[in-house]
């Protein structure tokens, strides 16, 4: 399904490749699915675009009545794309049902491996480094238009059911939401869907809603209550895996395929600094640990190698969390059905990033820009739903979500938005223009992904003013570049050029914005491993 060999020398060239890209056969799709086509025609009549209204105060509604459909986003934090709709042996029956009525983006990628930066892109349609510092001090400035603020200004009722951690108002993510329900950090959809359901039932008017529902059900720690915890892994296994699963930070204590139970990783490793040129997780991480500034205090007494069987067992624990999240989703959809919203609402399912599950010897998402940490589920169910799945195989990224939903609502996207609307694929089953996907992180790495492979550049902070000159003066033959297997030298050069052009087109935010997150929150996040130790 991929169009091998077709690619770009730059973003501009990539756009020009539209004509060479396999066309989605709209006529065939319509012939095969006349009901879906009719439903789309009825439910997705063009909504006249309105100019973005001037920003009002954060909680105010401008009094405009929205004409677009309601928009409900279900945001599974840390859900890997390959865990949704797995065949055979799917573990997501409710999401599979949803997919049967939706447009499914098979190749959707996040623009960061971190919740903080990924949500910045989701909410603004821009790269996180454009609007704030690429660090855990990130703060989304109030004057940056967000999906919520633009929809609110267009007359939507806006509500955010945030599950804490890095998705909270302290980082500026409440911008545009008339009300935010802030759950305890790392809460489940079990909690947030309760508050969202309550808000839906008690909302003041029948104006369209924009609701963002977020949950950490598939985030570490994976183990979920009975009967999900050991739904796909043997309860009776003892030893190392049992200890990993039962420990609060057990999965984070797996490094290079070893379990290191006596190392305090938060103190021992500054993960964000673990990216000098040419190094990274994998078999070099333990070496880095040895070089750590905390070397004197680090003593690896015990190091237990994990077997393939152990990894499979641990993945089963994650899968149990996925099944748990799936049930929470099914129960949420029942609420929407009961509220009569499904015929008038766009429902979006997505995740902010993926997760490594033993690849490169690690469990987590903080260490790598890789397909495992970046590929995410993305499904859009138009009002009333489709009568069968419509699949999009072209690459899209989360930065495209904002302009897409704004187009659906008939609201003009801000000119600063970098993403490109894919709404045409949902409403008219149009072809999506394949473009390179860029990702950035606070761990000195950026990535460009094309359909035929990816190129990473590591070693210097992505929002550093020295980034561009460094990349320009570094050839792809050096260790700073890591390319996908099989990617030719010529293609690597093209991707390097795309990286440079991408960065040249961005205005990096001045490093003045800092979060007002309280110190106790920072400490709590640091416990979770989300704060620089330096």
């Amino acid at each position, binding site marked *: *399904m991929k169009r091998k060999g077709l690619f770009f020398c730059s973003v501009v060239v990539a756009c020009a490749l539209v004509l060479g890209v396999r066309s989605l056969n709209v006529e065939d799709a319509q012939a095969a699915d006349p009901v879906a086509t009719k439903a789309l025609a009825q439910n997705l009549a063009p909504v006249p675009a309105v100019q973005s209204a001037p920003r009002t105060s954060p909680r105010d509604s401008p009094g405009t009545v929205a004409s677009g459909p309601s928009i409900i986003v279900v945001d599974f934090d840390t859900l890997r794309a*390959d865990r949704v*709709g*797995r*065949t*055979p*042996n*799917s*573990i*997501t*029956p*409710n999401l*599979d*049902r949803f*997919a049967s*009525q939706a447009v*499914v983006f*098979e190749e959707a990628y996040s623009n960061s491996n971190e919740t903080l930066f990924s949500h910045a892109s989701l909410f603004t349609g821009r790269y996180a480094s454009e609007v704030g510092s690429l660090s855990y001090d990130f703060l989304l400035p109030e004057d940056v238009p967000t999906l919520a603020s633009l929809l609110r200004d267009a007359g939507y009722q806006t509500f955010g059911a945030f599950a*804490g951690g890095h998705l909270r108002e302290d980082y500026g993510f409440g911008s545009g939401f008339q009300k935010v329900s*802030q*759950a*305890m950090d*790392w809460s*489940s959809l*079990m*909690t947030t869907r*309760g508050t969202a359901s309550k808000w839906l039932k008690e909302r003041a008017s029948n104006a369209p809603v924009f609701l963002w529902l977020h949950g950490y059900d598939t985030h570490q720690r994976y*183990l*979920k*209550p*009975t*009967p*999900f*915890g*050991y*739904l*796909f892994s043997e*309860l*009776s*296994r*003892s030893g190392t895996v*049992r200890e990993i*699963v039962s420990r*609060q930070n057990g999965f984070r204590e797996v490094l290079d395929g070893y379990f290191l139970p006596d190392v305090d990783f938060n103190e021992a490793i500054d993960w964000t600094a673990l990216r000098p040129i040419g190094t990274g997780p994998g078999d070099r991480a333990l070496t880095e640990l040895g070089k750590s500034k905390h070397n004197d205090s680090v003593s690896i007494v015990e190091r237990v190698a994990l077997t393939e069987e152990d990894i499979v067992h641990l993945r*089963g624990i994650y899968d149990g969390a996925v*099944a748990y999240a*799936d*049930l929470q989703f*099914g*129960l949420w959809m*029942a609420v929407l*059905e009961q509220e009569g919203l*499904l015929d008038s609402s766009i429902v979006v399912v997505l995740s902010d990033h993926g997760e490594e599950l033993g690849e490169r010897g690690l469990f987590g998402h903080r260490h790598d820009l890789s397909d495992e940490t970046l590929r995410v589920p993305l499904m859009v169910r138009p009002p009333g*739903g489709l009568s*069968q*799945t419509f699949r999009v195989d072209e690459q899209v990224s989360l930065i495209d979500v904002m302009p897409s939903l704004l187009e659906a609502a008939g609201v003009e996207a801000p000119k600063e938005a970098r993403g490109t609307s894919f709404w045409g694929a949902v409403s008219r089953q149009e072809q999506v223009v394949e473009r390179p996907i860029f990702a950035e992180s606070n761990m000195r790495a950026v990535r460009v992904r094309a359909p035929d492979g990816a190129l990473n550049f590591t070693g210097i902070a992505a929002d550093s003013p020295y980034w561009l000159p460094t990349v320009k003066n570094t050839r792809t033959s050096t260790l700073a570049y890591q390319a996908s297997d099989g990617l030719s030298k010529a293609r690597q050069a093209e991707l390097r050029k795309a990286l440079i052009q991408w960065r040249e087109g961005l205005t990096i935010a001045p490093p003045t914005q800092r979060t007002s997150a*309280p110190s106790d*929150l920072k400490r*709590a996040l640091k*416990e979770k491993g989300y704060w620089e130790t330096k």
Partner: protein
Amino acid sequence: MKRSHAVALVALCFALGCPPEPEGPANGMPAPQLGDPQTKKDGSKNKKGGFKTKKGGPGPHSPGPHIGGAAPQTTLGTAGAYDLPPGTPAQTPPLPAGLPNIPWDGVWTVQSAVAPLMSALDDDLDALVTMPEWGRRQYAGPHFDLVDKSGDGALDTSELLGILASTDPLFFEGHAPRKASAKFLERVQEFSPWLVAAASSQHRYEWLCFQRAELLSKDATMQLPTEVELRAAFTLSADDFQKDPAIVSMKKALSASGTKWLL
């Protein structure tokens, strides 16, 4: 691993009436008899959705009328066991590789959402989730008798949903029974003002139940309110809550043990 394959499989299953019904009871055991421990008094084992409810017909896994033979038994998951010892008996069914496809009419309901899970728990495909089957998946959850509110030896959907709704993943750790995360509790103690402000009544109730269990683990003879009494207190107004005898009793007990009261 394309989704198209999954959809095709689902479509095929729909066309064929999938999942296939077993020709007889699983694992070679004879079918259970009327009056056996797993059969309700009215004999209505197989109900709507495949699991016991008051009304409805056979479910997707139903092998038909349950007459003749004894119910399959295993050695796992005895009542009161929060955890299982290493070593799984040979007759334990294999873990599900996935959750089963259950025919769906396109309407989102609570029943349809939970049906695949119920089916996955039903290892012997007799349309009942029994205590041994629950035990095979149990690590830190409540006793089977706490889940099976009706006490009829099998779970129905509402019972399962009841326990899921009262079981917050934030409040469980490792393989211990109803034990809150130690790290989390440290944070509650340290950052109590903003954490408690963010806590729902469900969170607070769970915290109180945990503290109750902790006190009883140190002194099993201690006179403390029951979980039901604590639950009832959370239905009261804020003022009445503080005056409720169960809450007052817990306050005193926690104060005596040196535990900070956070509610």
